[in-house]
């Protein structure tokens, strides 16, 4: 167990290093974008004088490294600063949206993970059967349509017929049940997008083990195929499955901009795109760090869980 704690500690340190690299990369990239916040805020009617006045007011005249250092100092003291465009604290801007993003990600995960595990296990069990082929083909088809297109089709079938709303409107008085109902279509879209990957990986990981001697042994003992798969194959196939699940969870948190746009879902992705457009660097940085943290933590959890399920991984080179 001590080994695992040591590994977690080391990975967390590395994670912080990763976050630092990301903040540098993102800051550099935003600096390279044409135009700046003052120009974006004033729009096309800006004159040189108004631009200069606004730049001065926003502190955009400092050299880039100095601005980065200022930002970094703030973050190290736990202060993510204020949005330069609206002068609102970042925490306030990001807070509610982070909640929305997490809600949608967990909702979609709650639908997608059981679905893909069950489908994957059944496909491995009945490999090469009609069921295997059909579920595989269906899953592949659903990931080969662009996300926005899947969303439009779901809206056509399920929203225009009045079953579910075509957009999400969360207000202060929205109850949890309402939320589940309103967010069903975005969650379903995401489910269709991520299921194929997890399902195929589950199937592959299990089938990979079926040729091993100990499975052969279990089968020779006269165990039913279902029991063989559930008792012997799945536990040993957990490591790759956990990894792919973590990867897809990270995607559900960080990669859903398009679904947010189509369903008018107030999540972080749209906020980040807005902030990039407006060169509101403090907001871009804050969201990039949130996304990166989610990614790093999920990967860490996945590795820890894989290690627990398969201690041999601990001693890998």
């Amino acid at each position: 167990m001590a080994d695992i704690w040591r590994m977690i500690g080391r990975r967390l340190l590395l994670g912080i290093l990763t976050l630092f690299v990301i903040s540098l990369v993102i800051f550099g990239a935003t600096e390279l974008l044409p135009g700046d916040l003052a120009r974006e805020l004033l729009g096309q009617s800006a004159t040189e004088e108004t631009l200069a006045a606004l730049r001065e007011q926003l502190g955009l005249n400092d050299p880039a490294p100095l601005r980065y250092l200022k930002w970094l100092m703030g973050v190290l003291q736990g202060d993510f600063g204020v949005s330069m465009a609206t002068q609102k604290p970042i925490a306030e801007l990001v807070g509610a949206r982070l909640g929305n993003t997490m809600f949608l990600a967990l909702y979609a995960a709650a639908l997608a993970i059981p679905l893909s595990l069950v489908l994957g296990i059944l496909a491995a069990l009945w490999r090469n059967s009609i069921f295997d082929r059909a579920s595989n083909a269906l899953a592949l088809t659903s990931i080969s349509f662009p996300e926005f297109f899947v969303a439009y089709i779901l809206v056509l079938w399920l929203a225009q017929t009045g079953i579910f709303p075509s957009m999400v409107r969360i207000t202060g008085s929205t109850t949890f049940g309402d939320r589940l109902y309103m967010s069903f279509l975005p969650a379903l879209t995401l489910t269709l997008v991520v299921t194929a990957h997890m399902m195929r990986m589950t199937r592959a990981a299990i089938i990979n083990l079926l040729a091993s001697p100990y499975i052969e042994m279990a089968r020779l003992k006269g165990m039913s195929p279902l029991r063989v798969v559930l008792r012997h194959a799945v536990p040993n196939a957990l490591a790759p499955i956990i990894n792919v699940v973590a990867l897809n969870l990270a995607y559900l948190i960080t990669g859903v901009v398009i679904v947010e746009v189509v369903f008018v879902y107030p999540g972080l992705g749209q906020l980040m795109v807005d902030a990039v457009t407006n060169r509101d660097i403090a907001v871009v940085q804050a969201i990039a760090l949130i996304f990166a943290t989610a990614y790093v933590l999920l990967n860490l959890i996945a590795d820890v869980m894989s290690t627990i399920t398969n201690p041999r991984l601990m001693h890998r080179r």
Partner: protein
Amino acid sequence: MTIFLSLIVGLALFFAIGISARAAFRTLAPDHQKPTFRDMPLTASFGIAIILVYVLVSLLGPVIAPFGEGEVVGAQYLPWAAPHYLGTDKLGRDMLTRLVYGARNTVGIAFATTILAFVVGSVLGIWAALVGGWVDNWMSRFVDALMAIPALIFSLLLLTIFGTSVLTLILVIAAVDATRVYRLARSVAQDIVVMDYIEAARLRGENNWRLIRREILPNAMAPLVAEFGLRFCFVFLAISALSFLGLGIKPPTADWGSMVRENATLIAFGDVTPLLPAGAIALLTVAVNFVVDWQLHRASGLKE
């Protein structure tokens, strides 16, 4: 009802194509290859047939297409009737022609991008695993950092900075994809480099490049091929997603991803136009992965 009918027609077509393709491969294949094709599942022969059709259409595009790529041939949204068998698009260009040229452009770009991503990603990944030490550490940390930035937003940043020519599009998507390939290749190679035969080859004095090419790559091929199948298809989706955000392939070049986007609002009225390019992408994805599955199955040695 229509859905049910098209399902039946689709299945019938699938079997017809699969069976006839398998028969054709068996007769045409050289003798020593014949056993390979004998056990081929229908899905695989169907996949190969579809891929061959796509390749043919891509190569012969200008010959097959009834009109010019960007040629405006009439009013917008003409119905499906001769000489415009699939109607026209919003600018009055022949839909069939656009689809045919789209095959050429889309498949070409996706192929170039995936190859580039795999060459860069797998060579660096295997090299990192082979050399180990600080090179491996630093490269892996950097790749980890890049991967933690959402791919779509990262490509969006890069494309806004560097412009959206086809070349930058290929480079940017390949760069983003290469990080994923790097990770996979590294983890696969890590298991291989500790094998005895690698040690033996090292002792023989083989240099790193030769080790990668001759010893490691052949043994790491199976998972890489599987990844290739999916990555290849994700390129279409990436282009489509980027064109949703206003940065795709430049007009008047026809490409399926942008064509889905251009016509997507029509789906709200149940119009099938956007389904054509979307279906073209889907069919290719399914076909490629059927073949990949078959190859993986053969590699795994599982006999059932």
